[in-house]
């Protein structure tokens, strides 16, 4: 077991800063050589300008407990592949300051046929939100902040 964990390549999930449209385009491009794929589904979380007690959110600032987070993400990855018929899946999450309108979460799922890709995407997003130790501050225009909580 320990041996297995040591040799298994952990996929990089956390990125410093926003996830750019160019990064997403490159991922799509990289999947075009996989001729067994018929359907992709991509979820993207974008930082929304929420208004909290009259103050506008201008950015989110993310941090994480990276060792535990990577362990949880590996479990989510394995259980998703057990549950759904997917060709591949990728998860990316931003760390640091992400401004309103920028993308901070990307879940990219591919399969031979489409039926399960929607549900698989939703399943992964929900588990990332509820189980992975990622912390976020909502930064207001006056640079004050409030800690965000997923329900």
């Amino acid at each position, binding site marked *: 077991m320990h041996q297995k964990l040591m040799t298994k390549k952990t996929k990089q999930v956390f990125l410093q800063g926003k996830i750019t449209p160019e990064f997403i385009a490159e991922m799509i491009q990289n999947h075009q050589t996989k001729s067994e794929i018929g359907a992709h589904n991509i979820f993207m979380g974008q930082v929304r300008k929420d208004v909290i007690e009259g103050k506008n959110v201008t950015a989110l600032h993310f*941090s*994480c*407990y990276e060792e535990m987070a990577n362990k949880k993400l590996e479990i989510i990855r394995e259980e998703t592949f057990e549950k759904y018929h997917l060709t591949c899946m990728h998860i990316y999450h931003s760390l640091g300051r992400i401004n309103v309108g920028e993308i901070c*979460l990307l879940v990219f799922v591919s399969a031979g046929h489409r039926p399960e890709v929607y549900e698989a995407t939703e399943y992964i997003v929900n588990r990332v939100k509820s*189980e992975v130790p990622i*912390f976020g501050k909502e930064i207001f225009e006056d640079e004050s902040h409030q*800690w*965000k909580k*997923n329900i």
Partner: protein
Amino acid sequence: MEISYFGEIAEKTNKTSENLQEISDVNSLITFLKITYHLNESDFQIAVNHSIIEISEEKNLEEIDEIAVLSAFAGG
């Protein structure tokens, strides 16, 4: 024993980790957090070796354990 703090907890304790010699179980850690940093039980979660434990759990903590106090998750 090394205790790490993350998210809002690190803000409230004003540190990312500290070494506590007197803590031997989960209950004493909780008591320490309440008294020293005025935290409420609803404000934090405790992870032992990367797994969240029940706050009510009576559990001994070993020097070798990786212990972290976390605020609410906010990914996505």
